[in-house]
C-alpha cells in the first residue's frame, strides 16, 4: 500500500514535468499540422535562460524569492522572441511542403539551438537549487517530497486550463478552431491565417520555454538535454492524441505512471515501457486517446 502511494506521488510529480514539456508541441501540431522537433530546443533554452537570470538574482544578493520571477521572465523572453522568429522567418516558407521537409527543418532548428546554448552558456551545467528547496517539504507515506514538485503540478493545471479556456471560450479560440477545420475557407472568409499561425506557434514556444524554466530547478541544465527530452514529448502527445491539450495531460499521466511503476517494480523496462504504450495506443487507436480521426474526402 505504501509502495502504491509512493508510485502515485512519483507519477503525479513526473506527469507535471511531462505535461509542461509536451503541451506546446501538441498546440503547434493541432493548429499548424507540423510536428515541431525544435520544441525540445526551445524547452532547453527556456531552462537555460530562466536559470541564468535566477542565478543573477542570487549573485547580486537579491531576495531568493525573486528567482521565481526570473524563471518566468526567462521563459517569456525565450517564448516571445523565439516563437515569432522561427515561425515568420523559417516555418512560413515550408507550409504545404511534404511532411519530411517540415520535420527536417524543425530538426535542423533543434540542432542549431542545442549547440548555441553551449556556445552561450558554456559546457558546465547551470546549477540552481534554491527555487527547488526554498518552499520546504512534506511527507507522504514516510517519503519526503519538496513542495516545489507540487507547485509544478499546480503550474501544469493552471497553464493547461488556461490553454483549454483560450481555445474554448475566446474569440481567438474560435478563429483557431476555424483555421484547424479548414484553412482555405478561413482565409476566404477573411481570417488572418498567418497571424493565427504566428500566435499559435508563439503560444507553443512559450509553453515550451515555461516548461523548461520551471522544470530547470530540479533537473540538470546541461548542453544537449534537448535531444533527450523531445522524443519523450513525441510519445506523450502521440498517446494522448496529437493536437489535443487534454490528450497531452492524459498522455503525461499515463507515461509517468508507467515509468514510476517500472522504476519501482521492473527497472529494466523503464525506457521501453513508454514506447510500448505508445505502440499499443497507436495500434488500437491511431489518432491517440483524445485525437480526432481525419476522414479523407473523395
Amino acid at each position, binding site marked *: 500500500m505504501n509502495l502504491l502511494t509512493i508510485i502515485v506521488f512519483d507519477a503525479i510529480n513526473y506527469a507535471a514535468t511531462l505535461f509542461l514539456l509536451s503541451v506546446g508541441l501538441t498546440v503547434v501540431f493541432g493548429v499548424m499540422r507540423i510536428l515541431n522537433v525544435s520544441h525540445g530546443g526551445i524547452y532547453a533554452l527556456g531552462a537555460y535562460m530562466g536559470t541564468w537570470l535566477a542565478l543573477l538574482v542570487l549573485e547580486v544578493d537579491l531576495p531568493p524569492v525573486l528567482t521565481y520571477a526570473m524563471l518566468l521572465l526567462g521563459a517569456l523572453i525565450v517564448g516571445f522572441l523565439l516563437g515569432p522568429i522561427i515561425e515568420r522567418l523559417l516555418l512560413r516558407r515550408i507550409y504545404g511542403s511534404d511532411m519530411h521537409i517540415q520535420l527536417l527543418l524543425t530538426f535542423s532548428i533543434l540542432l542549431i539551438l542545442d549547440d548555441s546554448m553551449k556556445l552561450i552558456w558554456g559546457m*558546465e*551545467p547551470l546549477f540552481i537549487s534554491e527555487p527547488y528547496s526554498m518552499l520546504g517539504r512534506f511527507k507522504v507515506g514516510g517519503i*519526503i517530497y519538496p513542495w516545489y514538485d507540487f507547485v509544478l503540478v499546480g503550474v501544469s493545471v493552471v497553464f493547461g486550463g488556461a490553454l483549454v479556456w483560450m481555445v474554448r471560450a475566446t474569440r481567438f479560440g474560435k478563429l483557431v478552431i476555424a483555421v484547424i477545420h479548414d484553412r482555405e475557407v478561413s482565409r476566404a472568409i477573411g481570417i488572418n491565417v498567418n497571424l493565427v499561425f504566428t500566435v499559435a506557434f508563439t503560444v507553443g514556444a512559450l509553453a515550451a520555454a515555461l516548461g523548461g524554466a520551471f522544470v530547470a530547478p530540479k533537473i540538470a541544465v546541461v548542453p544537449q538535454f534537448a535531444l533527450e527530452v523531445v522524443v519523450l514529448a513525441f510519445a506523450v502527445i502521440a498517446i494522448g492524441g496529437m493536437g489535443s491539450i487534454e490528450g497531452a495531460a492524459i498522455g503525461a499521466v499515463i507515461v509517468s505512471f508507467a*515509468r514510476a511503476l517500472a522504476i519501482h517494480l521492473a527497472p529494466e523496462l523503464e525506457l521501453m515501457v513508454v514506447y510500448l504504450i505508445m505502440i499499443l495506443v497507436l495500434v488500437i487507436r491511431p489518432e491517440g486517446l483524445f485525437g480526432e480521426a481525419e476522414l479523407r474526402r473523395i
Partner: protein
Amino acid sequence: MRQISKFRIPAFVLGAFAAGAMAFGAAAAAPKGAPKSLKVAFVDFFSGGAAVFGVSGKGTSEWLVAKWNKEGGIGGVPIDLVLVDEGGGPKKQVSELRRLVLDEKVDAVVGYTSSGNCLAIAPVAEELKVLTVVHVCGTHRLTEDNKLKYVFRTAANQAGDSVSLARYALSVNPDIKTIAGANEDYAWGRDSWEAFKIAMQRLKPDVKVVAELWTKFQAGEYSAEISRLLAARPDVIHSSFWGGGLITFIKQARPRGLFDQSLVLLSTGEQVLQNVGKSMPDGVVAAPRATAGFFALKGTKAHQDFVAAVYAHNKRYPDYPAYRTYQAWSGLKGAYEKAIEMAGRWPTTEEVIKAFENLSWETPSGTVTMRSDHQAVHGGLVGTTKFSKKYGFAILENIVHHKAEDINPPLGTKTLDWVRGIK
C-alpha cells in the same frame, strides 16, 4: 623549426613535475630525427552532462602544454594540442580516433573519461598502433579484458575507490546492515558497484543489499529513483554517479532528506563540490579518485604551485580530473624523455612504450607508477564533506590517506579476485 634555446627555463622548475624532465628539460636542441612538433590529441567531454569533466581536462591540458612549450616542449619538440569532444557515444569516439590517426596524423592521444568510451577505443587504438594515454576512465576491464600494447592508463582503476569507500563507511558506522546502490547503467557504474558490493560483503558478511538502481548514462531526472531509495531506507547508499548526473542527483536528493536518512558514499563526489556549492550536504563520504585534493595540500611546493596555476588558468580549483589530466600528460612526457635518453635520438613509438612501462614519475599529488600491464598505481584518499567558508563550497575533512599498495590489486591479480580477498 622554432628556436627553443631562447626560452630556456632553469631545470629545477621542471624537475619537480616530471622525473624524466631532469635530464632533458634544459636540453638546448631537439634530438636527432625529431619532428617539428609532437601532435597530441586531448579527448574529453565538451558536450552533454559530462562536460564538467572536460572543463577541467581541457583547461589543465591547455595550461600544461603552453607551459611546457615555453620551457622547450618534450625533448625540445613543442607539443601541438588537438582538442576533441568525447561526447556522442563510444561509436563516435571510435570514428574520431580513426580520424585523429589517419587524417590528423597525431603522434599520441590523451584522454577518455567515460569507461564506455575507453573500452570501445582501446581495441581500435591497438589496431591503429597509436600511443594512447587514458586519463580518467575507471573500469578495471580496460586493462584486464584487453591485451594492451599501445594503450596506457595513468590512473588507478575504480577498485581502490570502491574498497576504500567500503572501509571508510565501516569506520564511520561499524554497524551497517543494509546497503543500496544507485549507479549508471554502463561499465563504470556496473563495475564500481560490483567491487563495492563485494568489498562490503567481505568486510561485513551479514550486510544486505536492499536496492540496486541502474540509471541511464547522465540522466537528468532521478525523482522516482530517490523515492525508491527513501523507501528502502538503507544504512548506506553507494553511488558512482558523476558529472552532470551527480549534480542533478544531489540537487534532487538533498531537499528530500536522502542524505539525512542514509550515509551516502559518492565515489566521484569530490569533482562536483565546486559546482553544487552550498547545496552539498555535510557528512557525505566522497573520494577524489586521485592521490590528493587541492584542499589537502600535502605540503610540497610543487603541489601548491600546481593548484595555484590551475586555479589561475581554469578559474576552478583542480578537481580530480585535473589531477588525472596532469598524471596523463606528465606520464607521456616522462616516457618520451626517458625514451630519448635511452635511444640517443628521437624514439619510435615502440621505444616510448618500452620507456613508459615501469616508469615512475612525480605528480602534484605523489608518485605514479606505470606497471607492465599498462595500469598505473598510486595512493588515494577518502573524506567527508564539510562546508568551508574559506572556499564558499564544501571540501573534504576527516581524510584518510591510502598508500598505493593498499588500494590497488597487485600485478597479475584480477581486480575482483583481489577485492574478494581483502581483509
